């Protein structure tokens, strides 16, 4: 039984993937392609956040990793002509090293919950401030642009054609989702679920709490950094507040939970909702009044949190599950009355 369902789901996934890949064939608008590409990139970053978030390790500072990934790969390219493919890995490693030290210190001394969130927030702010302080290399508040080669290059990940990034971003996002699935099926997931529920009990059972927390945090940081690099290459302009800092760091969990952070597709859906929402308000209100569109956007975000606490996808899934649960209970009751 399980196998049939397994392959059924796989076929469905394959069809959906195919449909997405064929979008550019039917949709010619560069603007729509652009929006979808952005959704893929943020979807990757939001999913990476939820690797940690779903187990109760709420990081409010993933902007730090995004910023590190972005700046490292861009600066390496601008100054040393290093391909961003290599640059993003270097950025990822840098993020992992930093979070490795910090994470180890935190997890060993029992910094959890709110305190962990605030420490990560502090990290994000430090990163933004550091980028500004290192203005000789980063041009500080002014931001940096990716030096244009003038041509489309896969090796250097540059193109004036959005299409290249559309597909690459999709592949990366798919990779991020696949990684989510791998983690979900792994021993690590069960360990982390136990830790998330009751850390002391998990430790008493012999689970190496520090090791697993570090592992998932480093994975999250690595993927987020890669997302940052991708973002930088696509937008070609970064500054400390668009890729790091408090605001970006808070927007990441937003995207994840609006969709539903405990599900695999939730963060991607959430990213979709938020990117589209933000664009929608920007268009509706007009370019002169960006600030008003942001205000309305802010109101919309708060409303979403109040009315859909489990996120859109999460709420729908929960309703569906409770309906199935009720049906099951009714069937059981009817059966036991026979």
């Amino acid at each position, binding site marked *: 039984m399980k196998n049939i369902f397994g392959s059924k789901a796989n076929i469905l996934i394959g069809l959906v993937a195919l449909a997405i890949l064929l979008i550019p064939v039917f949709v010619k608008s560069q603007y729509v392609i652009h929006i979808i590409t952005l959704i893929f990139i943020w979807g990757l970053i939001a999913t990476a956040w939820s690797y940690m978030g779903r187990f109760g390790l709420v990081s409010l500072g993933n902007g730090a990793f995004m910023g590190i990934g972005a700046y490292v790969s861009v600066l390496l390219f601008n100054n040393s002509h290093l391909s961003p493919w290599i640059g993003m890995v270097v950025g990822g490693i840098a993020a992992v090293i930093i979070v490795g030290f910090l994470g180890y210190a935190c997890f060993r001394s029992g*910094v959890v919950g709110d305190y962990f969130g605030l420490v990560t927030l502090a990290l994000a702010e430090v990163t933004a401030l550091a980028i500004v302080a290192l203005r000789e290399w980063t041009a500080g508040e002014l931001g940096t642009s990716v030096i244009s080669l003038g041509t489309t290059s896969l090796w250097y990940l540059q193109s004036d054609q959005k299409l290249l990034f559309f597909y690459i971003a999709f592949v990366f996002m798919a990779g991020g989702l696949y990684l989510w699935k791998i983690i979900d099926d792994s021993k690590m997931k069960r360990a982390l679920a136990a830790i998330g529920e009751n850390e002391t009990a998990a430790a008493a059972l012999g689970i190496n709490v520090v090791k697993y927390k570090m592992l998932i945090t480093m994975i999250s940081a690595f993927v987020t950094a890669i997302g940052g690099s991708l973002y930088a290459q696509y937008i070609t302009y970064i500054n400390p507040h668009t890729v790091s800092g408090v605001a970006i760091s808070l927007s990441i969990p937003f995207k994840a939970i609006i969709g539903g952070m405990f599900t695999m597709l939730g963060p991607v859906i959430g990213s979709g909702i938020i990117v589209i929402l933000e664009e929608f308000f920007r268009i509706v209100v007009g370019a002169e009044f960006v*600030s008003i569109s942001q205000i309305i956007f802010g109101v919309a975000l708060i409303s979403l949190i109040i009315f859909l606490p489990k996120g859109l996808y999460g709420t729908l899934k929960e309703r569906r599950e409770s309906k199935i649960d009720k049906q099951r209970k009714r069937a059981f009751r009817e059966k036991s009355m026979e």
Partner: protein
Amino acid sequence: MALVNGILLGGVLALLGFGMNLMFGVVKIIHMAYGQFVMLGVYLIYTFYTLLHFPLLLSCAVVVLVMAVVGLITQRFIVSPLLSSNRLNQLLALAGLILIVENFALFAWGADYITIQLNLPIIQFGDLFIRTSFLMGFIGALIVLGLLYLFLKKTYVGLAIRSATQDMEMAKLMGIKPASIYYITLALGSALTGVVASFFVPIYAVYPQFGGSFTVSAFIIVVLGGMGNLMGGFISAFIIGIVTSVVAVVTTTEIAQIVVLVLFIAIMIVRPQGLLGEVS
């Protein structure tokens, strides 16, 4: 010299710490946009004073009241619906407030820096040059803190707030209406941002992103002192003020901020409950 400035600044920061600690202790929320409220306060004082030609003190007083109302609105529309929600949701909803307040400022007053020119004298104590604005802020802050202390210790409402901080369920059994206490707390906490704004007027130039660093400072003060611990907040406000001031003189403001943040992270690692916090 920098030490003195740090102490003076610490006094005003202590007000921020008090407000944050109060709101955390009673309503159990972390006000993510606290610094942004201060920014709003400064802009409003500017509006009343420079644009509407109210006398300065009256402007400040009015703004304190206005901010209190803003606090009530925040409680009604954002905090109240999320009281039974999980912490992350509360945090993110209040973070949404950052977007709204900053962009409101951007829209209403533009992106340029705004100052209110008050040419206040500089007092000389031997080798030290102290700016009157700093001194006023410090003394004013201490007075306000003193009043707040008396309020908490001597009044029935203050007593109700203290009980609510320690055991909300029992407070209900005393006849304390939770909603009233929440509203009072949010109003008081927000009014304090108006007070801080008043002290900031002669010291800082304001711009829409001004609040960000103060929000972060407020967090650090509160967490460092032990969340909900008023005395802890008081002490750490001065520590933060001094460290920032001293380091800024030697290097730059950014590096000073980085140092404070790194110090914060380090202390968190060594003592996660903060300096005066209790281990849960």
